[in-house]
């Protein structure tokens, strides 16, 4: 460890270049960081410690953290944060699709491109002509849509990849207060264009809904059964991988645990909140809601206990099967955490998909109450569009939808594009010789080749997701209704700057940091395992 003169000089030069940055780093990162650790363990409260009043700051040990875990709302905010992260797999999948489409061979000769453009223009003119002949050309909206689509199509086929990429990237690029305000207006239940567009569609669907209303319960059950069967098949896949030594014991259990969540949820969703949703909708739907009606509605509905039995049956089968298989031993051994990334990403995404399916089943469940009264007559309102941000149950899905809009053409799309350009062409050529279908080509070549990009994107998205939700909540919902869009980040803001409990807010921030840290450590430890396969 000799530190000679030359080392010292090198060091001085190195630090010299670093100096401006390191000073700022000290002032705005390191010092606040130390302060914030200190704050988290004190009762620093603006009420007593501010510009006008200096009272001794007391050290309170872990009190803030204890308060945090006993706070009856903390669970909800924590849950909200995770709920909003459900959008991540969808967003990533969206950007992958966009990247795949953009990566398609665009390099047609100039001649072909001009041909395409001419053909497209011809088709546009023809379709516009047909519209006019049919008498639809008169409505401004149709013309607007036709010209919008036509315009993009013509410019796109002339300009190629760049044009589409630019258009895709727009929403992500402009995301901020301005676009949140825009979406707030889009979601306006009364005057927003989304509900304006939905109203006639739902009106048209109303007779269909009335028609299928009697079958809705059955459809809901079928969907739930499907969720159960999918769960079983995914468990089987996992166990096969385990048997073949392609998946470690720990990873197998992690995957199965993740896959079990939708089934567990399907019941908890059905029971308290679902039940109240049914009752709520019934109360809204029937013209004069009387208590006896409410009672009737909840008793004529399939008993949640019944659903519980179904969910437990599936879970028991899956877990029993797994326990049986795992106790029997396997052909090839491997380390316990092998392919843990596969469990985290593939099973995690499957879980989210199954969750969505449980949600759809839920919709079918409440549909009959929305269109039919208890006496079998159609309700006066029929199907009504949701209240979006103003509705306790719809507020989070609304934010998810908006997030999805911004996520498709994000940096992730560009990263995927870069990843795609790095896939060796020989692999595809070999696959072509083997006569692989496009689907096989994707699963066996593209997806594994992109795995490191996927992993990187997922980790960054999860870190961002854990810290996210502040801007949206502040601009669009103020964390409401009834706290349904308050994430941890927004909670820190309301505690720190709203009520002035700086110590407590710091404690929440550090909990958040801990979460992010765990995720990142997971990445470092297991990321390479996944990418090296």
């Amino acid at each position, binding site marked *: 460890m000799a530190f000679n003169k030359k080392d010292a000089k090198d060091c001085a030069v190195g630090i010299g270049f670093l100096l401006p940055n390191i000073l700022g780093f000290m002032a705005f990162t390191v010092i606040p960081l130390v302060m914030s650790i200190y704050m988290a363990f004190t*009762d620093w*409260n*603006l*009420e*007593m410690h*501010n*510009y*006008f*009043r200096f*009272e001794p700051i007391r050290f309170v040990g872990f*009190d803030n953290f204890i*308060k945090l875990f006993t706070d*009856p709302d903390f669970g909800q905010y924590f849950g909200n944060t995770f709920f909003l992260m459900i959008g991540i797999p969808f967003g990533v999948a969206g950007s992958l699709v966009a990247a795949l489409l953009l990566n398609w061979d665009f390099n047609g000769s100039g001649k072909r491109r001009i041909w395409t453009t001419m053909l497209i223009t011809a088709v546009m003119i023809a379709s516009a002509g047909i519209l006019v002949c049919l008498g639809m050309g008169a409505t401004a909206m149709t013309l607007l849509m036709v010209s919008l689509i036509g315009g993009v199509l013509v410019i796109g086929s002339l300009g190629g990849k760049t044009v589409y990429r630019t258009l895709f990237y727009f929403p992500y690029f402009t995301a901020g207060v301005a676009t949140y305000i825009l979406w707030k207006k889009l979601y306006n*239940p*009364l*005057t927003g264009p989304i509900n304006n567009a939905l109203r006639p569609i739902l009106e048209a669907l109303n007779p269909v809904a009335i028609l299928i209303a009697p079958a809705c319960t059955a459809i809901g059950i079928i969907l739930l059964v499907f969720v159960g069967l999918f769960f079983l098949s995914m468990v089987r896949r996992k166990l096969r991988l385990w048997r073949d030594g392609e998946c470690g014991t720990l990873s197998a259990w992690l995957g199965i645990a993740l896959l079990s969540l939708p089934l567990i949820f399907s019941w908890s969703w059905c029971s*308290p*909140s679902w*039940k*109240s949703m049914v*009752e*709520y909708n019934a*109360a*809204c*739907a029937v*013209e*004069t*809601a*009387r*208590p006896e009606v*409410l009672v009737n509605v909840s008793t004529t509905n399939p008993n949640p206990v019944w659903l519980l039995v179904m969910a437990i049956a599936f879970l028991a089968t899956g877990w029993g099967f797994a326990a049986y298989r795992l106790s029997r031993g396997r052909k090839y051994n491997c380390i316990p955490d092998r392919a843990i990334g596969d469990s985290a990403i593939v099973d995690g995404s499957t879980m989210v998909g199954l969750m969505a399916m449980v949600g759809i089943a839920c919709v079918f469940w409440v549909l009959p109450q929305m269109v039919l009264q208890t006496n079998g007559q159609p309700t*006066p*309102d029929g199907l*009504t569009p949701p*209240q979006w941000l*103003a509705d*306790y149950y719809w507020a989070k899905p609304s934010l998810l939808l908006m997030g999805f809009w911004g996520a498709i053409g994000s940096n992730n799309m560009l990263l995927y594009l870069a990843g795609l350009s790095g896939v060796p062409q020989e692999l595809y050529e070999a696959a072509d010789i083997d006569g692989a279908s496009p689907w096989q080509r994707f699963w066996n070549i593209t997806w594994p080749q992109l795995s490191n990009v996927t992993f990187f994107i997922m980790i960054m998205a999860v870190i961002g997701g854990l810290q996210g939700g502040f801007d949206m909540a502040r601009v669009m919902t103020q964390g409401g209704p*009834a706290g349904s869009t308050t994430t941890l980040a927004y909670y820190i*803001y*309301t505690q720190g*700057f*709203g*009520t*002035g*409990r700086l110590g407590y807010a710091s404690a929440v921030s550090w909990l958040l940091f801990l979460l992010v840290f765990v995720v990142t450590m997971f990445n470092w430890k297991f990321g390479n395992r996944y990418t090296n396969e």
Partner: protein
Amino acid sequence: MKKLFLGILLLLVAAAFYTMLTATDRASEVPVITWRTDTNPQREEQIMLFREWLVRNGHIQKDKDGKPVLYTQEEADALNAHYGVKPGEPHSVKAGDKKPNGNVVAETASNQSTLIQAVSGMAGDIVDTAEVLGYQQMGVGVPLTEDANKNGYGLNTTYPGMAGLLVGMDGEQYAYPCNGSSATVWINMDTLNRFGVKEIPEDWTPEDFERIGKEYVMRANEGLQRQEYFFTQSLDSGAGVSLLTNIVRSKGYDLYNETLTRCVADNDIFKKYIKLFYKWTYEDRLVPNAADVASMSTESGYGGADFSNFISGKYAMVVTGRYCLIRFREVQDEKNKALVKEGKEPNFRINFATRLPPQYEFKNFIFGTRAAMFYRGSKQPELAKLFMQFLASKEYNRYIVERGDGLPPNPSLVMEELKAIPKTRPNEGNVNLQEVEWAMTIGIPGNFSPFVKSGSPNWLQSSINQYFNNRMTLDEAVKNIETRYNMEIETSKKANPRMMEAWKKDWAIQQKIDEYKKAGRKIPAEWIKNPFYLKYYREKGMLRESTPGEKK
């Protein structure tokens, strides 16, 4: 590269200079105070009024020789343009007018930003707030009692019940009201009469409300496929909370106990009336539920969607404050203008009446205020105090009365004007005078406790909401109200030793009050912190008033 770099740097430096130069010049030749308030075009008018008031009271700008400085034509034009008035209009200035020796700049910000800036010494000079108590505890207020009494903006100039909202925990006055807000029932008599309801009793109980309401709703919605007309607005709202408070108070109950040290909502009275509200919403259908509210397409403006529904006749009555007069008169004027355009006589008007919210024996009226607090970080204390004086002045109060922006803070000065309004605006019934009289005689502030932070959620409202939406049973809801507020109290106690001390002291007094009540003894008046109980017990003769000598 180098050139580009340097070029950008130069450009940025130039931009910085430009920004500095064009920043609104706060270093004006006269003292300027900043007024933290809500966003409302009327604030600008009030500022112009203040400038006039300064001149009229001799606070004028003087040059070196002591001669008053006068506006030049240019300055007058610029000022008129700034406040959006044309020359010759009221509040406009013209060349040759004297200049006031001070100015006010209104600033608006969210509550969170105001709080954080107030505790950092950055909140200007006057801070409008409904939470004087909270700010006082943070030490950002300056006691004003002496100054206020000397300069005519003391507690005795405003409503007796207002004291609780302007006084800190130490008993000193910290603020003066900009206006009073209130919760009165406004009744659209035209709508009622149309469906054959002739009269609303002067004093009415919830039973009367239910009886008349049922009759009205039945008649109004006859033959309609779905119910469109309701008796009043949704009770799953702030108005519902205010109505509930009225009713339970009239029965002798309140959200907090006598010393404001505990929430005591988990009782049968709260249950009974929350249940009644549920019945009105879902069984009798007197008031709309969430789905009804959503299906009524209304644009919301000043006064909110409820008020729009009231004007359009969907609601027969609405619980709101006097500030809605502004919107109400606007709507009326617009309709009349339209009539004139069509060549008809502008005779459109809505006749309405006001009543106390339905309640039982102990009549009470809830009001609040947007109080102007004197900020401790003020750089211009003299001017800020003049501003407070202005708020208590006849000019300002007359302005409030005329514009309908709430109750006048210093009502005794403008009784004549209030009495005159029914003649000029006969259709406004008794709203102008009546609310002020109620506020003077039976007015009590809404629920508050010094131990519950202003930023904390309205648990009363959210629990009612949860009960209405079947996320909680009635028992759970009432229990939730009590435990949540008590948790808030617990938290603020633990967070602040000073608070803990105050709470312990009050809690000991509370024990004594309970003993006295049990024994049927008269309770010393100075023990009671809750303005409701103070008034209630006093009326019931349960208090022993302290003689001046006895006071500690």
